[in-house]
């Protein structure tokens, strides 16, 4: 029988939640790396027992941990993220030039085919790669040295590269997103990059439809349709049917089109999920009701999913990396909140239940279906 492993990164450690395929009863282990901010924990699709974790504190900086046994034991691997060549400058919050400086790893994206190959998205925004299981990292500098990079500016959370999607049918095609530079695509394995922000409109920047400068919060793709992308932007839910070349808004009847995560059903490529948040200054659900919204039409028409979720006095946030889907049938959906709850649905979002209620603030949720 299949099993499910949910990897949860929090502000004070990592937790591993495991269940059988029914996804009703859960075993919780952790905290792993107690006291450390775990920005992201993710398993290799090629070897589910190979896990990578980004571990950070303001005191002791960045570490990367690797597990070869599904999270039972961990070993630190290299934490040397050195920019390749002159760092140059981007814009600081006050509009002055600011030298690139490494702060932390936001996102780890293991290869679809090789457990030793991982891409890492970091703050200040850059993309790094390991091909030896984390023993060494090298930058793919074409992104950070893009002609527009001097115009990039950090969002409130820092200038983070937070989304990495590798086309499962073409490893040379990579999509990334940076807050708040926007989305970029490479078609040559990360050597060169192009902004893919046409159709995005952001009222908070001087030129609302500029080539770069958009605060993209998250991008999602269904593996069967790598040219179709869904985006949760700072405001607006967007869709592209041409690998990011153009975007159109699909916010439709959402109560708010502000939010952070977005994800796609594992077996229905037109079924997508978002968690509306009231506004960019009020990071909690509208009306105190925690509602996941599902569209079965690839956007525009949305339904509220509320069964099992708190529908009063709820003022948590759901961060950009804190939603994930499993590949079982029916598809499971999981998300974590800044209030420390991890909710799961074993029926595509129709009903929800908390797996855990009292973790530290959840930064990331990833799920693995295990045979």
């Amino acid at each position, binding site marked *: 029988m299949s099993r499910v492993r949910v990897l949860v990164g929090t502000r004070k450690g990592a937790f591993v939640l495991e269940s059988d395929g029914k996804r009703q009863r859960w075993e919780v282990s952790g905290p792993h790396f107690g*006291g*450390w901010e775990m920005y992201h924990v993710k398993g290799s699709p090629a070897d589910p027992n190979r896990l990578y974790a980004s571990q950070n*504190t*303001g*005191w*002791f*900086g*960045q*570490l990367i941990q690797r597990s070869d046994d599904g999270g039972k034991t961990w070993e*630190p691997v290299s*934490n*040397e*993220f*050195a920019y390749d060549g002159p760092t140059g400058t981007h814009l600081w919050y006050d509009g002055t030039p600011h030298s690139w400086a*490494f702060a932390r790893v936001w996102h780890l994206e293991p290869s679809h085919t090789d457990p030793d190959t991982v891409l890492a998205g970091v703050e200040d925004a850059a993309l790094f790669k390991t091909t030896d299981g984390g023993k060494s990292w090298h930058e793919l500098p074409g992104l950070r040295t893009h002609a527009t990079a001097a115009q990039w500016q950090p969002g409130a959370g820092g200038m983070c590269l937070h989304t990495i999607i590798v086309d499962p049918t073409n490893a040379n095609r990579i999509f990334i997103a940076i807050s708040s530079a926007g989305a970029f695509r490479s078609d040559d394995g990360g050597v060169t990059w192009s902004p893919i922000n046409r159709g995005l409109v952001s009222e908070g920047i001087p030129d609302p439809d500029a080539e770069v400068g958009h605060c993209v919060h998250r991008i999602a793709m269904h593996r069967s349709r790598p040219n179709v992308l869904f985006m949760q932007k700072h405001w607006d839910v967007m869709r592209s049917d041409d690998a990011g070349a153009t975007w159109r808004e699909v916010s439709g009847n959402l109560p708010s089109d502000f939010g952070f995560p977005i994800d796609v059903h594992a077996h229905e490529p037109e079924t997508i999920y978002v968690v509306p948040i009231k506004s960019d200054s009020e990071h909690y659900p509208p009306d105190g009701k925690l509602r996941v919204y599902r569209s079965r039409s690839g956007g525009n028409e949305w339904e509220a999913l509320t069964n099992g979720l708190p529908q009063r006095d709820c003022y948590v946030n759901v961060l950009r990396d804190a939603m994930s889907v499993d590949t079982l049938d029916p598809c499971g959906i999981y998300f974590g909140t800044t209030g420390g709850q991890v909710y799961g649905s074993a029926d595509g979002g129709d009903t929800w239940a908390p797996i855990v209620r009292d973790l530290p603030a959840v930064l990331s949720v990833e799920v693995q279906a295990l045979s």
Partner: protein
Amino acid sequence: MIRVVLPQHLRKLARIDGEATLEVAAPVTQRAILDALEARYPMLCGTIRDRVTRRRRPFVRFFACQEDLSNESPDAPLPDAIATGAEPYLVVGAMAGG
């Protein structure tokens, strides 16, 4: 023999039970101690000093003989009590919430 006391998170990371003890050739300086510490426990690289600049991380402090040496020259000789192991060299996580 130099004695080094690390904060709990770094002891756990380096799997050190109690103090770290290091052989450091004279002159014993903060830089020499930290270089020896990182050579013996490579997983500590980047956690005490920035990987690139090699400067002390902002929320790490260095104490010895009841003095705060955090802002002293890393190449200044340390007191004999540190060099002889009579007193430990302390790496301390700064008091800060979070």
